[in-house]
């Protein structure tokens, strides 16, 4: 039974954790994810769930404790943001390569500096090669739904990889919006009991977690991990199907919004996608053929599927909320462009840097991007470099040159 209520993105994650009632949650506070461990600690104190909360002295310890718990056979979750996840860095790789199905709520915030607390994807993008599955949300509803699907994906025998459930700091984490929840029993039945196969506390099976691997074995381990990431794609789709059967809410690797006959497309992730949808609807009313590809799953990267979905477009803007200082664009730009090349697409592309450190994005600006795409396809403009959107210095800004 659906329960219609309203809550923030952080409350939505905490509510999901309450319904899942994981075994262990080690966490260290950092804005803007602090509320999540706060809410969960209150639920434990009130006797609503019996999760073991471990107050640790740093995020490095939080991820280490999550690893220990997961290796022992427990279902472990944590939450963090920005520099907090940066302090986990070393352990993120160890967790993934040890094939531990930890679930982390990441409330995206830019890495310092300059020091800033607002939304940016530089934290998760920095960890894009760490071996974690990454799933992004447009709003509070999606972050709730994604979190409920995370354990099923992470713990699946074909996968056994940690999962990061991402949402934009403040923009969704602190925004109260309408949301539809589902009753506890339906969620518990969907998520199920965790039944690990190999774990340290199993008496009849001696095993080691994270030992030194000599060169004759280490590369094979990495290949096996890469294969698990590839298999995760199908598992993510299967889990989404099961979720849809209960809730009626459909999820894929990405969402195609009015994309089928679109000549001009925006590719983006996270909260900006809601703003893009409003721009798409307004321009469709004028008869303009515009659409959105909203990427939900960044790791594993669905390159083949993205290439197929965008192949018919004339011009595509790929939006990055993370500067990689590569001097030729951001991570989403690089990977989507590569996917288009492999799909033998002929579309013109432009990689746009937007929303850094929480810089706001308006519907009018997205409409401006679609207008630029029309000019790009007509050969009236070109983008040898990657432009910034929304800069105060007009001479450097995409729409004010």
């Amino acid at each position, binding site marked *: 039974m659906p329960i219609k209520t*309203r809550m923030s993105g952080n409350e939505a994650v905490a509510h999901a954790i309450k319904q899942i009632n994981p075994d262990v949650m080690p966490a260290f506070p950092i804005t803007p994810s602090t509320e999540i461990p706060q809410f969960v600690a209150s639920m434990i104190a009130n006797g609503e769930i019996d999760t073991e909360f471990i107050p640790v002295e740093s995020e490095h310890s939080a991820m280490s404790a999550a690893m220990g718990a997961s290796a022992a056979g427990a279902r472990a979750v944590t939450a963090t943001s920005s520099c907090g996840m940066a302090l986990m860095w070393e352990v993120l790789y160890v967790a993934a390569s040890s094939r531990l199905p930890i679930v982390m709520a990441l409330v995206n915030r830019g890495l310092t500096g300059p020091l800033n*607390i607002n939304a940016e994807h530089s934290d998760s993008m920095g960890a894009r090669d760490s071996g974690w599955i990454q799933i992004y949300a447009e709003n509070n509803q999606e972050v709730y739904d994604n979190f409920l699907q995370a354990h099923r994906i992470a713990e699946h025998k074909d996968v056994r990889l940690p999962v990061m459930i991402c949402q934009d700091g*403040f*923009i969704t984490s602190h925004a*109260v919006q*309408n949301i539809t929840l589902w009753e506890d029993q339906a969620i518990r039945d969907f998520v199920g009991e965790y039944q690990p196969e190999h774990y340290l506390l199993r008496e009849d099976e001696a095993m080691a977690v994270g030992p030194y691997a000599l060169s004759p074995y280490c590369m094979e381990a990495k290949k096996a991990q890469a294969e698990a990431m590839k298999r995760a794609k199908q598992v993510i789709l299967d889990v989404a199907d099961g979720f849809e059967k209960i809730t009626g809410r459909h999820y894929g690797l990405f969402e195609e919004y009015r994309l089928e006959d679109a000549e001009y497309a925006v590719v983006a992730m996270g909260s*900006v996608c809601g703003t893009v949808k409003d721009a798409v609807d307004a321009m469709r009313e004028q008869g303009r053929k515009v659409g959105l590809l909203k990427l939900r799953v960044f790791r594993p990267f669905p390159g083949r599927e993205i290439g197929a979905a965008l192949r018919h477009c004339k011009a595509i803007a790929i939006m990055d909320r993370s500067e990689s200082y590569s001097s030729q664009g951001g991570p989403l730009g690089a990977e989507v462009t590569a996917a288009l090349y492999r799909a033998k697409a002929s579309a013109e592309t432009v990689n746009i840097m937007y929303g850094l450190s929480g810089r*706001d994005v308006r*519907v009018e600006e997205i409409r401006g991007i679609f207008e630029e795409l029309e000019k790009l396809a007509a050969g009236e403009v070109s983008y040898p470099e990657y432009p910034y959107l929304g800069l105060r210095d007009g001479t450097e800004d995409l729409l004010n040159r």
Partner: protein
Amino acid sequence: MRHLTEIRWHGRGGQGAKTAALLLADVAFQAGKQVQGFPEYGPERMGAPITAYDRISDREIRVHSNIYEPDFVAVVDDTLLHTVDVTAGLKEDGGILINTVKSGEEILPLLKGYAGKVWLLDARKVCAATLGKYFPNTPMLAAMVKISGVMDIPVFLREMETSLQHKFARKPEVLEGNLKALRVALEEVTECV
């Protein structure tokens, strides 16, 4: 009535402008609306100017940007009138609500020629008479509901009573004062002509 009402709150950290915005979203949800209430933080410290926003609609809200052309603005601290452009983008068929002890003659010259409606409320006086403590967000919330018309006043009072009963379950003695603050603010808020 508008399909979408957009409201911008200006306050200082610690005065409850964010709380007022979230409370308004909450009570509008109770009245059956689609809502979005969110803060925009500057420096994280008491007294720094902060902005908070509400979207209240009959339709799904998808946009995630700040509000640049609000229908209504609330100013929780009148010292902000000297430093923040509170009427920026404010629609002239909307209005601005200011918490102040000052008169219209003193306030109007600070509004840069804004031609829409201006409402004043002395929230300090309301708080002194009803709460015994200065929490301007409670009276400002009631006044904003009245001037914006986002919901019927009896529905607002009924839903606030329910949510305050829940919020103050362990402090029932403050419930009556809060309800009285809402009612007094509805009477005290005055249009500046």
